[in-house]
């Protein structure tokens, strides 16, 4: 029986990859464990091994092909005497669009990225040259630029140097800046966070990368008790200029211990600044501001957003100030306010609502401490309705706080109660269908908007 060899998913969030190199050729006999090909993902280059034995009947995707979708057939394996061509025509592009029931490789549950419709109020002048960049590249560039600008800035974390970053965000930094300034640490979050805080007291400007923010829970005492509170406790003498950054929130199919949004936790702490960017230009401009800030900054990234591309201004020194929301889309009927990956649902909902004649204004808070209350209130006073969107847990969420703030400051303007769309009040399940249910969805945002607009 001839079988198709499918493009594998080599990481939880991989949607496509480059087939870098075939290690076998047509006619070769392979047995299980033999390396068939080298596949490049956005994170790493990996070897892809044969599971079954057989003969490589036909290679369907040539070496060097980019953007090969997960589950696309890349070769046909045949048995002695079989004809591969016959099989190809017999099974035409069967797995081109993977079906949900498909057994093997993981289909990431990443939400589709809606294309932003309008970008209002960008933080750069009209006519600025733009280039397309992923969030990942934008973050790397921000660090490289700031490390070039200031010798006291260094990067520390697990796998940031020789491995080039667990999520490839620090790619190339070791080569550019050397091991003194790009420091691989042991797996010791509590300890290295304390060391970094001490070095900030001692005059350096550390960037601490947490492999993901889930692991920062081991270090939260140093973040809050040491980094955030010392300026106050020292009567203003001893500041802590430090950035804690890394992926935060749900990735895909990594279940409860690796899928949590910490926005609300950190946003509660006086002494911290909290940033959660959505697009690449904000990721870059806000990270540069974070590194220059004399205070501890929590910089919450998102693994699913790392690979998304956006326009980024081509400027020598592009920074985005904290405490200034961005209006992505103007509207009159309802204000949808979100941040980070929540923006994908907010913007997608706004697109669909527009088709139904509902005009939504979409606000990206960008920073959660400080929060741009003025922009939020201004919008709610205009639309008289508000829906908040975030991936985090519902109890004591950012949305809860925004609702209370709006109620206290714009009660008379509200034509409906504010609705918070959040992740569900459950640990993140592993099963694909349950995971989907646990996350906030575009449909929920649309339903909430219809509820507050009484449609």
């Amino acid at each position: 029986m001839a079988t198709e060899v499918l493009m594998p998913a080599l990481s939880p969030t991989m949607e496509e990859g480059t087939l870098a190199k075939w290690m076998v050729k047509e006619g070769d006999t392979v047995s299980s464990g033999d390396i068939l090909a080298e596949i490049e993902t956005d994170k790493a280059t990996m070897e892809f091994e044969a599971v079954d034995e057989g003969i490589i009947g036909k290679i369907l995707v040539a070496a060097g092909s980019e953007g090969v979708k997960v589950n696309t057939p890349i070769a046909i394996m045949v048995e002695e005497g079989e004809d591969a061509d016959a099989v190809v025509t017999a099974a035409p592009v069967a797995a081109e669009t993977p079906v949900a029931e498909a057994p093997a490789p993981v289909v990431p549950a990443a939400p589709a990225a809606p294309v932003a419709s309008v970008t209002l109020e960008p933080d750069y002048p009209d006519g600025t040259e733009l280039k397309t960049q992923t969030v990942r590249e934008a973050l790397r560039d921000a660090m490289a630029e700031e490390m070039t600008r200031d010798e006291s800035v260094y990067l520390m974390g697990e796998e940031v140097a020789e491995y080039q970053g667990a999520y490839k965000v620090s790619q190339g930094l070791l080569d550019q800046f050397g091991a003194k300034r790009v420091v691989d640490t042991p797996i010791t979050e509590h300890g290295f966070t304390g060391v970094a805080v001490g070095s900030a007291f001692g005059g350096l400007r550390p960037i601490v990368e947490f492999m993901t923010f889930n692991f920062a829970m081991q270090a939260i005492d140093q973040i809050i008790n040491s980094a955030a509170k010392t300026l106050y406790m020292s009567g203003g003498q001893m500041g802590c200029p430090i950035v804690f950054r890394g992926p935060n929130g749900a990735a895909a199919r990594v279940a409860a211990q690796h899928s949590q949004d910490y926005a609300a936790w950190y946003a509660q702490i006086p002494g911290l600044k909290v940033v959660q960017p959505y697009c690449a230009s904000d990721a870059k401009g806000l990270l540069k501001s974070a590194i220059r800030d004399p205070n501890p900054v929590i910089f919450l990234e998102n693994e699913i957003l790392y690979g998304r591309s956006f326009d980024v201004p081509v400027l020598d020194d592009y920074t985005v100030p904290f405490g200034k929301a961005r209006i992505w889309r103007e509207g009159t009927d309802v204000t949808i306010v979100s941040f980070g990956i929540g923006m994908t649902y907010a913007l997608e909902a706004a697109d669909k609502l527009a088709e139904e004649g509902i005009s939504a204004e979409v606000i990206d808070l960008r920073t959660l401490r400080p929060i741009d209350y003025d922009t939020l209130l201004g919008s709610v006073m205009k639309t008289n309705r508000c829906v908040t969107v975030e991936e985090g847990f519902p109890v004591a969420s950012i949305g809860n706080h925004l609702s209370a703030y709006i109620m206290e400051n714009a009660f008379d303007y509200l034509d409906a109660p504010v609705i918070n769309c959040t992740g569900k009040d459950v640990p993140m399940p592993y099963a694909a269908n349950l995971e989907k249910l646990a996350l906030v969805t575009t449909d929920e945002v649309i339903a909430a908007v219809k509820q507050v607009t009484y449609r």
Partner: protein
Amino acid sequence: MAARRTTKKPNVSKEELLSYYRDMLLIRRFEEKAGQLYGMGLIGGFCHLYIGQEAVVVGLEAAAEEGDKRVTSYRDHGHMLACGMDPKGVMAELTGREGGYSKGKGGSMHMFSKEKHFYGGHGIVGAQVPIGAGLAFADKYLENGRVTFTYFGDGAANQGQVYETFNMAALWDLPVIFVVENNQYAMGTSQQRSTSSQEIYERGLAFGIPGEAVDGMDVLAVKAASEKAVAHCRSGKGPYILEVKTYRYRGHSMSDPAKYRTREEVQKMREERDAIEAVRQLLLTGKHATEDELKAIDKEIKDVVNEAADFSKESPEPALEELWTDIYADA
């Protein structure tokens, strides 16, 4: 590489002995005064006195050079006085006044002085240990030849972050001296009841960090050990551990039922091992000073402490606007 105990005594001059005597006495009288002010309700909250342990910090500081850093726990008054911080500013912080080192916003456990390279004053047991290594990380990065004294207790020695820090400090050859102030108790828990292996100075061996135990009731022994540790760190050989065996005479903090040890145990230490008394005897038997001269020093120190106490009472409480300042540094 060996972990070992030393009690070697160096030759010592009259001037040196007198300066240790002064420094230790200042700490003791200051702490006695703080205890008094606490009793009068002028100091609130937690207040951890250093009485009995004076020789530790004074001996260690004797080997420090300008620019060297220090960081410790909440039992920090002695460390601040020993590195030259103003007793007035320290006492006024204890009373929560504007004239305190943290403008009254830190209190007994949280004080800092950039000028004197004193990095706190930390209320979370063990948290200062990686911070101390981080200060050393910065010094190594800046190539400034400084070392950091990182003090922690026998109780703190059981925190996981201490060993995370030992590993990194050894891995990166950080110029940090880990000073374990083993006063035999963590609140009411004796070291025997909390610690599987009693020799804390040996705990660096697994990481390749040399360590030694020192008699912390003997300021000269502490000083000698400190010189050795400092030389080791400053020469770029990485961290060093000193376990200084000491004893606190007072309770853990001001409200301590003291049911975990006998009165006799405390009394015996005070009578037989007191570090200040030992130096006093050296001064007298070596004919370096007369009773009268020492009395004059006692009086001088009493005056300094009284002045600090007066200042701490007269300094006003912080202005109410201070509630909202120093939360963020201006970007």
